[in-house]
């Protein structure tokens, strides 16, 4: 008999009957999206394995580590500094939030006109259908958007929550304020784990997370090649989505292994798309696992995604933390400086994102940009016209898409994306 995960899930207090409905649909979606691709890199085997048993393998590892006394911190966002948790010998894990499956349970508590990521996150916790949400000793939120802030208040009634106050401007005093916030978080991690965080431990953790950033960036670097596309955007997205959940050292090892293969593919001229395939940069709201809809539709409509400028893309690994600091205070400031460089739409002003997208479009030699917005994400939606105006002025065609986790706009998306790709081909 196969390892029965039901004992694990039952011990976590999960709703087994409802969760089985999710288990039933994952294999079909995985097959349609990933196994339909030709000539995928061998290095994807690891990431495929993780997702094939996504609620089994990693959750079991986390439970095993908890049995040894380690604490697990769940996070939603790229602004929470993993380094602090690692320095306290804690474990960071991403949380569920990328499926329509969890949305109805979220809507029991939240208005329907709220972004699906927020509704799905709360639904996954309250509906008891995500092992990661059940395992965590504490969830770490951050003040990135109003919807999440109010959702945290509801979630805090069900699970220990710690909220980091992320400033919404990027003046020097805001960076200093976030450095103070990181110091407070350090005290929280020490309290939860019972472990003192020394300068030596934090310095080591900064190196660990920097190594993960470098490895993921290596994979992305291969996607800049204008002649060979060595990996599909859908596969690169899967790597990024799993990076939020996996052990950071192993993640770096596997990403480096994948990058080795992709670099060799470039040397050998091995591409997963025919020559002339239109290159797309996807920007906008995050794509939490298992949200593969847009990538799959774009890449089965005659185009290839060569870069994701979002939290499940470049925002996760761009910019390293300065490793030269040797005091805790110096490291808090270095961490704050790195994290405050992430250009989220929650900041005002956020012109740096526009500049970054423009630069990435050039670096990745794209033919067009697709700017995607999860329904009801007001901040990204509001800055879309300014972004699109600059891209159009630079001669880069752009398509604006608003969608959610449901399947019922797939045909409309195929029509719009197909027309966009066709237009790119006529340029």
């Amino acid at each position, binding site marked *: 008999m196969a390892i029965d*995960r039901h004992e694990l899930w039952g011990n976590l207090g999960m709703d087994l009957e409802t969760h089985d409905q999710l288990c039933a649909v*994952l*294999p079909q979606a995985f097959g349609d999206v990933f196994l339909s691709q030709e000539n*995928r890199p061998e290095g994807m085997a690891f990431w*495929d394995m993780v997702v094939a048993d996504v609620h089994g393998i990693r959750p079991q590892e986390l439970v095993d580590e908890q049995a040894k006394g380690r604490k697990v911190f769940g996070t939603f966002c790229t602004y929470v500094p993993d380094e602090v948790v690692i320095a306290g010998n804690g474990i960071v894990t991403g949380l569920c939030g990328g499926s329509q499956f969890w949305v109805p349970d979220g809507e029991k508590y939240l208005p329907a006109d709220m972004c699906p990521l927020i509704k799905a996150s709360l639904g996954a916790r309250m509906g008891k259908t995500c092992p990661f949400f059940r395992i965590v000793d504490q969830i770490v939120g951050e003040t990135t958007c109003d919807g999440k802030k109010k959702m945290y208040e509801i979630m805090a009634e069900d699970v220990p929550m710690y909220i980091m106050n992320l400033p919404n401007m990027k003046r020097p005093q805001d960076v200093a304020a976030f450095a103070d916030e990181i110091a407070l978080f350090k005290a929280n991690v020490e309290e939860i784990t019972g472990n003192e965080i020394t300068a030596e431990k934090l310095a080591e953790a900064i190196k660990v997370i920097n190594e993960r950033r470098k490895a993921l960036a290596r994979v992305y670097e291969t996607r800049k090649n204008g002649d060979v596309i060595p990996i599909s955007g859908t596969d690169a997205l899967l790597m990024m989505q799993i990076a939020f959940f996996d052990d950071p050292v192993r993640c770096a090892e596997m990403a480096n292994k994948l990058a080795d293969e992709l670099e060799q593919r470039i040397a050998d001229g091995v591409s997963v798309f025919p020559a002339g395939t239109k290159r797309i940069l996807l920007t906008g709201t995050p794509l939490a696992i298992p*949200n593969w809809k847009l990538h799959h539709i774009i890449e089965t409509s005659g185009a290839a995604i060569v870069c994701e400028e979002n939290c499940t893309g470049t925002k996760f690994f761009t910019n390293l933390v300065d490793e030269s600091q040797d005091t805790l205070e110096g490291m808090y400031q270095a961490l704050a400086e790195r994290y405050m460089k992430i250009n989220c739409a929650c900041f005002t002003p956020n012109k740096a994102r526009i500049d970054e997208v423009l630069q990435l479009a050039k670096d990745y030699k794209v033919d067009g940009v697709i700017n995607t917005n999860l329904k009801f994400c007001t901040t990204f939606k509001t800055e879309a016209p300014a972004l699109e105006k600059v891209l159009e002025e630079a001669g880069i065609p752009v398509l604006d898409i608003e969608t959610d*986790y449901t399947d019922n706009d797939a045909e409309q998306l195929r029509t719009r994306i197909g027309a966009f790709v066709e237009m790119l081909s006529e340029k």
Partner: protein
Amino acid sequence: MELSEHIEQVKRENPGVRVDCYVLFESHTDAMQLYELVRNAGLGARISTTPRQARSSCGVALLVSCDDAEAIHAIAEDEHVFVENIVALPNQINPNRDVYC
């Protein structure tokens, strides 16, 4: 039923449809071990989720050509990798289905 007989039966029941074989395991470590062995032997294999039609519980499987299924089973036996079952199924993959999780 012998593996070859099972594959032929599924092919007969699904005329005109490609039939794939899924190797099922008790654990993902067995799956990854056999994946490496099969690839090193020059045979094709892909990491897959376990199709619902093959088993009611999820887990890691190998998607292989049914033409290689006997050879892969032999590799598993020779290398003492425990295989729970090898199941032939009519094509489960449809990139145009647009049904997501």
